[in-house]
């Protein structure tokens, strides 16, 4: 690796044009793309929430479906950002060579990576908000604090968008992403308190869980849904932001190495 690959990000305002390019493509396919993004988490939430929920007493003092809904907002946002930063970004980088085309203009690679991270976040915010709307419509929460979930989805989207771009920078082919799902995303879903409280896990797994970003997202979202101010909110925000920043920087370094040497 060259020292230049480790240089701090240098972006120009033109990055917005790359974001806009992705938006334009998305607009053409918005409806199928939204359905694909939303159907899965929504079915999990409604199926498990009502089905399993009817067998359970309250979880942490709230109905199971409300408990699950708070986790699903974060999970859905994570999923959506991850898919965009892996599969879609990879096809632009590797298959369509869209990034190569952009690099021949006054755009920098840093502009492109920033635009892709923001784009993945933007798309995932929609997925998060869609679940939030269901929470409101089903009357699972009436708290105005739930509005704070909107900026939270931005942060979750940036975190997982950036982490996904790290994988994209390393990927030789689409198959590579399976490792990321098996080793990172699935454990995250099962260990971070989407479906059940982290406290139910053995202590060792609880320690693992505490280090994972999705745990911190859910620790913010769940109190907000139940109308409480999250405990140590700043800490969770800092952890998510740190993951986002570290992920973005690493993605940048690795993409520079991949495309600019």
């Amino acid at each position, binding site marked *: 690796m*060259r020292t*230049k690959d480790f240089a701090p990000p240098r972006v*120009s305002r*033109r990055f917005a*044009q*790359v974001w*806009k*390019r992705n938006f*334009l*493509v998305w607009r*053409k*396919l918005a409806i199928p793309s939204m359905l694909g993004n939303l159907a899965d988490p929504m079915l999990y939430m409604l199926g498990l929430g009502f089905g399993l929920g009817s067998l359970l007493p309250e979880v942490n003092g709230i109905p199971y479906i409300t408990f699950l809904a708070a986790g699903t907002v974060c999970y859905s946002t994570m999923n959506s950002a991850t898919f965009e930063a892996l599969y879609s970004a990879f096809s632009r980088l590797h298959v*369509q*060579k*869209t990034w*190569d*085309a*952009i*690099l*021949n*203009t*006054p*755009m*920098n690679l840093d502009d492109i990576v920033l635009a892709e991270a923001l784009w993945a976040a933007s798309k995932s915010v929609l997925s998060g908000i869609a679940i939030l709307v269901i929470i409101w419509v089903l009357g699972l929460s009436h708290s105005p604090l739930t509005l704070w979930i909107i900026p939270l989805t931005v942060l979750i989207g940036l975190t997982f968008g950036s982490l996904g771009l790290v994988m994209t920078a390393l990927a030789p082919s689409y198959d590579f992403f399976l490792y990321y799902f098996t080793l990172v995303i699935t454990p995250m879903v099962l260990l971070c308190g989407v479906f059940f409280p982290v406290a139910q896990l053995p202590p060792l797994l609880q320690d693992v869980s505490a280090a994972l970003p999705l745990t911190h997202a859910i620790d913010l979202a769940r109190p907000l849904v139940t109308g409480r101010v999250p405990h140590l909110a700043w800490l969770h925000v800092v952890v998510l932001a740190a993951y986002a920043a570290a992920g973005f920087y690493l993605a940048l370094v690795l993409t520079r190495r991949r495309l*600019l*040497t």
Partner: protein
Amino acid sequence: MLGLRGVRKSYGANEVVCGIDLELSAGECFGLLGPNGAGKTTTLRLALGLTDPDAGDIRLLGYAVPLQAREARLRVGVVPQTDNLDPDFTVFENLLVYGRYFGLRDGEIAARIPPLLEFAGLEARSGARIQTLSGGMKRRLSLARALVNDPELIFLDEPTTGLDPQARHLIWERLKRLVAEGKTILLTTHFMDEAERLCRRLAIMDRGRIIAEGSPQQLIVRHIEPQVVEVYGDGALSWAQEHGRVLCQRCEQAGETIFCYTHDGDRVLATLGGREELRYLHRRANLEDVFLKLTGRDLRD
């Protein structure tokens, strides 16, 4: 317009550009010729600031590259070796979105698109999706896209590879038009007829080095005998032993064919008279002969 001095680039232990000097002046069409793997594309990437040289100086439109490559690329157009048009967009949208990367306003780009489509012969295809275009149309659209910022200098990396003759001729005609309009062009190719037809000056590159430079005519005069007799057929090899090697300045064998390079074709032809088993072609030496002499006949992969 573009100046490279002592530029080197290695990947690991493999030096792909081994100290090259190039100078392009305004309004010329310059050709960079070389077999596959000669370092042509890497040279273009270096000139655009997409990869950093290990040594040497690069200036593009007066800017130091790679330091000010962003400013320089504002006034450069690039047609890449493989089309990377946006498959999700129409022809029009491809040009519009690409123009935005240069910081142009939508109104400005929209005003430029009709003449660009006309130039590319795609007026009727403005709303067409990329998948519905033929290979030649895609190439022309790539060329139109490279012109969206009205560049002073245009880089074309093997612009006609993979095209049928009709499509190639159309691209050539358009490139000539661009030069007539005062644009400067740097193209890489391994088609000699393309280079001979379009380029005022050429550099032949091999294994990372520029091994010859000049106008097509200069290169032929300087590096090769003026006439070629190609002899093939059953007795070609024995004829070569008996006469070819004696009469010709150089005599090369490629498969079943003997290439005789000579200053006096008539003397060679005289020895071929009456030998019906031999077939031959007498012609003037061309750029391909120079190329093969300088880079050898071995396959490059």
